[in-house]
């Protein structure tokens, strides 16, 4: 079900909006529009559909309009033209055109927000800050306290509830911000560069925590970031924005493999592919592998050969036609230590390139990829090298 949908959203700041809109339609750049009308183009023709439970990352350089688009969801920025549909029960409410009462309802019950600079009220304790949303709803104190306690436990800050925000470290302050956003039980969470103000280690840690929480909470998250590594790590979908326009929207791997233009390629060039590329896009498919009779040859030295049954499942793997290698099926919850010595591994094609390299290094053998018991491809040294080279060739092209 759609949770948030942007439909042809234009956001223009300034007094002269009527004059600016036709220029937006004509595809003029932000600079041209500013010079002619004095208006600043925030977002032009932004259309994205975000399904429930997704984490959609809006990503781009500063000034690309990503925060502006995010803030349209709870009406902090006014939409000049277009619709921003947000789910409320069975309805989709257009927050761009709804009245003040409906907007207030959406803000109190449906959408909550986490800010880059935390935006905690300094004269309030941690628990008073977390309870802010509930207090604004008019919930009595006793009721509030139970919820606040629960949310503080969730971000493991319950020991700190009577402290003031400035007594906490940056990472802890943002956890208070998270708890405050969770407190209203809104299903849609807006996060405006929530971790950008934190140092890299804490940032990494909080990203993990967010993903861990999300596993249980299953909220719809719209996340703004200027860091592609963060976007790739967190996002189920990524929209890349440039100069107020969405230049590419898709799943992380799609963006890494097929950057839509040079701007995107520039980002991709500077990211770490290991966690993003999946073996499905790295592997040599079974159909492309050479055959030795009815056996499939895995490497270019003809050392590893696999016998398949009629359905295509792995039956027997041999090394140099003599030694038979036991096959170990590697599942998501296994660790590398679980693999017995001298085994060859089959894994899902969904595993990341990083995992494939680990498996390759740990076993010394190519990694077989099978889906529902059927061999679909193989990742060996050749495929890994190619994956790395492709990344660097994108980087070269971008420079």
């Amino acid at each position: 079900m759609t949770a948030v949908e942007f439909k042809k959203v234009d956001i223009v700041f300034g007094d002269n909006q009527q004059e600016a809109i036709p220029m937006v339609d004509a595809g003029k750049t932000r600079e041209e529009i500013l010079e002619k009308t004095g208006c600043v183009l925030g977002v032009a023709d932004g259309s994205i559909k975000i399904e429930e439970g997704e984490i959609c990352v809006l990503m781009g350089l500063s000034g690309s309009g990503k925060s502006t688009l995010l803030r349209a969801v709870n009406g902090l920025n006014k939409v000049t033209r277009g619709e921003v549909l947000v789910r409320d029960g069975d309805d989709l409410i257009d927050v761009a055109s709804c009245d003040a009462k409906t907007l207030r309802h959406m803000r109190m019950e449906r959408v909550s927000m986490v800010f880059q600079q935390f935006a905690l009220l300094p004269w309030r304790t941690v628990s008073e800050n977390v309870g802010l949303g509930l207090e604004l709803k008019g919930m009595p104190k006793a009721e509030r306290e139970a919820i606040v306690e629960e949310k503080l436990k969730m971000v493991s800050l319950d020991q700190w509830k009577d402290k003031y925000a400035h007594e906490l470290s940056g990472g802890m302050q943002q956890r208070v911000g998270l708890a405050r956003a969770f407190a209203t039980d809104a299903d849609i969470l807006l996060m405006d560069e929530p971790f950008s103000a934190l140092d890299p280690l804490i940032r990494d840690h909080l990203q993990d925590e967010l993903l861990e929480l999300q596993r249980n909470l299953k909220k719809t998250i719209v996340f703004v970031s200027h860091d592609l590594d963060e976007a790739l790590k967190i996002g189920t979908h990524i929209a890349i924005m440039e100069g107020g326009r969405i230049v590419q929207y898709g799943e992380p791997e799609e963006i890494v493999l097929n950057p839509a233009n040079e701007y995107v390629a520039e980002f991709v060039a500077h990211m770490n592919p290991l966690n993003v590329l999946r073996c499905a896009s790295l592997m040599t498919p079974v159909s492309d592998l050479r055959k030795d009779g009815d056996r499939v040859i895995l490497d270019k030295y003809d050392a590893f050969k696999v016998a398949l049954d009629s359905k295509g499942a792995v039956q027997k793997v041999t090394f140099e036609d003599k030694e038979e290698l036991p096959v170990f099926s590697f599942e998501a919850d296994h660790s590398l230590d679980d693999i017995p010595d001298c085994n060859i591994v089959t894994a899902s094609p969904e595993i990341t390139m990083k995992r494939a390299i680990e498996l390759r290094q740990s076993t010394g053998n190519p990694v077989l990829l099978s889906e529902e018991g059927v061999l679909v491809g193989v990742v060996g040294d050749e495929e890994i090298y190619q994956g790395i080279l492709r990344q660097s060739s994108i980087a070269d092209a971008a420079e």
Partner: protein
Amino acid sequence: MSGIEQWLVDHKIPVGKWGESFFDFLIDNFAGFFDAITDGGSFLIDGTVDMLLFIPSIVLIILITGLAQYLQRTWKLSLFVFLSLLFIVNLGYWTETIESLVLVVYATVVCMITGVPLGIAAAHRPWLYSLLRPVLDLLQTIPTFVYLIPAMTLFGLGMVPALVATVIFAVAAPVRLTHLGVSSVPKPLIEAAESFGATKKQLLWKVEIPYALPTIMAGVTQCIMLSLSMVVIGALVGASGLGKPVVRALNSRQIDMGIEAGLAIVVVAILLDRLCKQRNAPVDGA
């Protein structure tokens, strides 16, 4: 005299006359209104003064010392308050001190009641502030004595004209500081409250006023000190209090009386300043 200068002198713009006729108009048409304020004001002020003077001075001194201890929590200051009030009794200016203090407190209360809402309104409406600013500048630069003349014309002699002149003189401080405090609330804090559905009223009471409170309190302190300085001058229009002996000393060249009354005023000023000082560093919260 050159021709132009002579011409200018001959064609005087009757600014003073206009002002006078404005006040005459007020007296002719609203005399009842001003009389009511005068009567009500004197009743309130005199009543409070009488009540406080009914309490034995030593009991009141202990009460004020207790208040100091409650507000500032330092025994040093409380001791200072206690001793300096005893010193005032010793100088023989206890009654005058109480009269001045009552006037200061009333003036401050009126200033805050009018100044804080005005400051908040101005912070929310830039056009209102641009309208208010020249008025505030005017109020703060006109020599304080000038206020006394219309105040006396409208409210006669006594405590009330002094109170009115004091309020007009001191009200600019809370307006300015409240405006400063409310308009300097960081935008992210306002947006945070808005994003959780705060109404305008909730925004004011839960974000803007708490954030601006240290600045507003600085306005109270300033207002108190300004009031004290004006209350002394109020003696010129017949307000009783510490200003009276000063004026008398001035007229009869009594150096000893001038020194003693002046000293009492200084002591009261220091007391009020120390009592109103903010105990917490700003933005530390309650």
